[in-house]
């Protein structure tokens, strides 16, 4: 196997699941998250000669995947997903526990939700989130603080009820 191909395979193997879980939490839809992450890896492979030289290729893939998830691509893919779901095949329905978190996250504004997922699932620091999103660290702190408080309240409420 060529070196370049092996390193892309290694990046894919190491990164796909974690990224998909992050985007699943953010989007609330596993199939859509898998589509977005696959698209990000396609774009990475198309530029692999350059991206393989980066100190952290996975950071590039993550940034593209999140951009895709928060952009026009997602709205357009929504239609594709809609059309695809007219066929009999369906993805497996998630368990109630998973639904609880996704449902709670769905009530958190998108930017706050993104900061929370990147911090708690991707284990990114405030500075790293700020760098990925191209915003000030203070902005990320605000998103994270508000998102964390809102989500904790929703989760605590769900456990009590």
């Amino acid at each position, binding site marked *: 196997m060529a070196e370049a191909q092996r390193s892309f395979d290694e990046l894919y193997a190491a990164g796909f699941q974690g990224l998909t879980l992050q985007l699943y939490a953010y989007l609330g839809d596993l199939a859509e998250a898998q589509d977005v992450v696959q698209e990000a890896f396609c774009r990475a492979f198309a530029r692999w000669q350059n991206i393989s030289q980066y100190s952290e290729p996975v950071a590039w893939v993550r940034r593209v995947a999140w951009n895709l998830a928060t952009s026009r691509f997602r*709205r357009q893919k929504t239609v594709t997903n809609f059309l695809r779901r007219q066929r009999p095949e369906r993805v497996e329905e998630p368990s109630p526990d998973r639904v609880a978190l996704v449902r709670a996250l769905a009530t958190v504004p998108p930017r706050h939700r993104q900061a929370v997922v990147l911090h708690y699932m991707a284990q990114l620091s405030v500075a790293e989130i700020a760098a990925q999103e191209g915003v000030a660290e203070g902005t990320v702190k605000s998103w994270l603080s508000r998102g964390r408080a809102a989500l904790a309240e929703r989760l605590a409420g769900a456990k009590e009820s």
Partner: protein
Amino acid sequence: MNLSEQDELLSATFAEFAAAAAPSVRPQGAEAARLEVAHRRRLKTVSLGVLAVLALAVPATAYVAFGRTAHGPPRPPSTAGPTVEPSAAPTDGPTPAPQVPDGGPCAPGKEPTVPPGAVSGAELCSATLTLPAWQGKPCTTTRAALTYGQMYIAESFHLNLLSAIAADVDGDGRAETIAVFSCGGEVFEQQAIAFRRARDGGIEVMGRVLASVAPIQGMWAVQPIAGGRLRITVTDYGLFVGQHVWTGQQQERTYGWDGQKFVQVAGPTSFPPNPHLGDLALSAPDLAFSAPNGPTRTASYTLTAGNLGPANVPGFVVVQVPSFIGLVSPPAGCEVEDYPAGVREIHCRLPVIRAGTSASLTLTLTAPANAPSLPVDFVPTAFIQIPEADSAGSGPDGFDDPVWENNRTDGLRITYK
């Protein structure tokens, strides 16, 4: 709940979520990604090939070309697909070694014939230059320290020398060098710049011939013609990654040196309205439900999609609502799709909206009398969608909608009396 307790609850919940959901993740695989990229490259080869033939069809005149891209279109970044513009904020970290190009003016092994006095392509490829200022986003650097005609700025963000030709643009009997640079990542800007030999033997900028400033979005080719003039093929669309090259209109414009600067001396000075570009603008109010009438509330909700573009386009509207909101008597072309996260999406195909007109859609929605007042993400969106098109929503027959900001309405609320 204090910060520490919040942190603990979220850490535990996300860990449980990841552990429970991980077995359900089913990667398509790295091989599938490779096959998809190969498929897109084949498609792109077909579309770019048409434009390359058009560029080569221009009659050649006597001049020296340093690079094989001097005639043909610049090499756009390699992804075809939906329009997406990932941010390209510069990042700290080690600068990767430059890639040795396998084509273009700086590929190894090229020994161009250089007219006396001209700056050779080989010199430019490894020069340190101060370029004229870039005109807008995304590039801000004017210092170019090139290796193999490239300069790393940040991840996925580079300055590239795309082509270089020689022509005597000021009639002094010595050839100048006209190079096209691009700067950026998924979104990039181009400049055609003339260089000449400085008195100290170095390279100096003679002047900027042209920058890709709106409405010019890019340059396909620079060609010297009689009288030291330069003919540049420009396009109004289609050079950014993900945009469809066939959507752009091409024009040939001619530029000449007036002793002080380059000015346009022939060819069209503006683009006609691009018949392949659409511009849908959505107007939508808050979703206001009536007071309860028995167990339910109702709302008559009207959205309006205005066609601001030059073409008649098919519209498509998507409204996301919480799943406790129902759609009564769906209008023709409307469907409802439920998502696991308690989100319901209402998709409606609109009839073709003629240029300069608008189409309205009225939905009758219901909510339970005790509906929770949640700060939900309620963002109606409209876009152009050809019924048989792929996910990109357009194709060789159009239509792209480059003005995306007005396709959605943010900040809307769901209210109850």
